């Protein structure tokens, strides 16, 4: 399996999908996230972080502005807390209704190394498409996502249409990924799950671009402002690649103290992992964990 040369593939993701509707929907959501979203135009999408009062990530997702409504696709693991906060945080005189769209709308992530030329059948021109701008094609919405690893598009699809989209993609020689292949792709893209991000600071995760320091108060804002003024973090999110197996959890490393591995998969004798490392002033590119050497690459959000 070649990872440096991704095939044309897709994966039907199992996220929490929440529809927020009413004239105050964007305003209610904006008060909860560290990312400024009030200026989003129609048919735009933006990633956003939910943080606690200590500035640590408690959920993250993608916000889609669609004809006056807001679609939030966030982690399935944290959906109850996030939805409860949305309901509790809506003032009695605000027009904002929170609806569960988990089994109604799905996000399919598709990858290729040929700029998705085959998708011209849908009227999609990947080169001409603007990143994070939704393109309507029939009942589906396509959006070009930024990725340093390969050409990535996401499609938002109604549940009734998932099978027909899968058939169309198969007809265009896109292959459906199983969860193992998706895990590898996700690690290569550097797309953290909430398991990787939960409890960490945005700057540590390389997600500093998802913190808007000019939006005023939101949960965690004081801590984020302090980190910005301090200018650096102690820990850094990284990708590890090596030939030894690597278990999820905390591992001691010589000269660094420890490393917390949050995602790890081994295939064809190669291990790919995501981890948080206490790097300090070091600029090493190789770390030794449990007797095996792993190349390390610091990650930032694309």
């Amino acid at each position, binding site marked *: 399996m070649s990872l440096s040369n991704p095939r044309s593939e897709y994966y039907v993701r199992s996220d929490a999908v929440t529809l927020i509707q009413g004239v105050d929907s964007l305003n209610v959501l904006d008060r909860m996230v560290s990312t400024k979203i009030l200026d989003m135009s129609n048919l735009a999408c933006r990633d956003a972080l939910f943080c606690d009062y200590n500035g640590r990530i408690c959920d993250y997702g993608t916000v889609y502005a669609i*004809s006056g409504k807001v679609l939030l696709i966030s982690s399935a693991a944290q959906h109850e807390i996030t939805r409860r906060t949305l309901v509790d945080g809506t*003032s009695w005189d605000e027009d904002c209704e929170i609806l569960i*769209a988990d089994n109604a709308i799905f996000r399919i992530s598709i990858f290729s190394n040929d700029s998705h030329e085959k998708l011209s059948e849908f009227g999609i021109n990947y080169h001409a498409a603007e990143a994070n701008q939704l393109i309507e094609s029939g*009942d589906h919405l396509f959006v070009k996502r930024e990725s340093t690893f390969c050409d990535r598009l996401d499609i938002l699809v109604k549940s009734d249409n998932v099978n027909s989209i899968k058939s169309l993609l198969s007809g265009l020689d896109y292959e459906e990924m199983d969860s193992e292949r998706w895990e590898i792709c996700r690690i290569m893209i550097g797309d953290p799950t909430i398991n990787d991000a939960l409890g960490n600071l945005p700057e540590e995760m390389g997600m500093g671009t998802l913190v808007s320091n000019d939006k005023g108060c939101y949960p965690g804002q004081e801590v984020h402002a302090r980190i910005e003024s301090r200018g650096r973090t102690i820990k850094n999110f990284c990708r590890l690649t090596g030939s030894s197996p690597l278990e999820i959890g905390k591992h001691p490393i010589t000269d660094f103290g420890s490393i917390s591995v949050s995602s790890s998969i081994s295939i064809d004798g190669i291990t790919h992992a995501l981890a948080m490392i206490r790097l300090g002033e070091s600029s090493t590119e190789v770390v030794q964990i449990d007797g095996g050497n792993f190349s390390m690459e610091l990650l930032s959000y694309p």
Partner: protein
Amino acid sequence: MGILGGEGFSLPVVTETEVVNVKLNFTEAAIGALRQNMSGDGESHVLVISAQSGGCSGYLYDMKIIEDPGDDGFQRIDIGDFDVLVHNKDSSMLNGINIDFKETLMGGGFQIGNPNADRSCGCGQSFG
């Protein structure tokens, strides 16, 4: 937009939280300041105390004097010359709060102490 509409597209709504019977505690200073702000409109107007997301601790208090909206969804607390309303959705967060009024030039005004809050912001407007 096709994806969010169409025949048979109906979604379940996330329901409100637990509703409790609200008790509020006002100091004499707070009642005096509210009486002054009501300007004798206690027959037709009410004070609504509510909470919404925001601030650095998670939630923000809000106090509004508005025309009486009726009892639909609200709990009514009679504190003498006028009524105070708390919406059912805020009842568990605001039950037992203490409302005081400080007459100082710096940081004065209404102050809310909340026994349900694990933390509050230095400015006193945000809690969580």
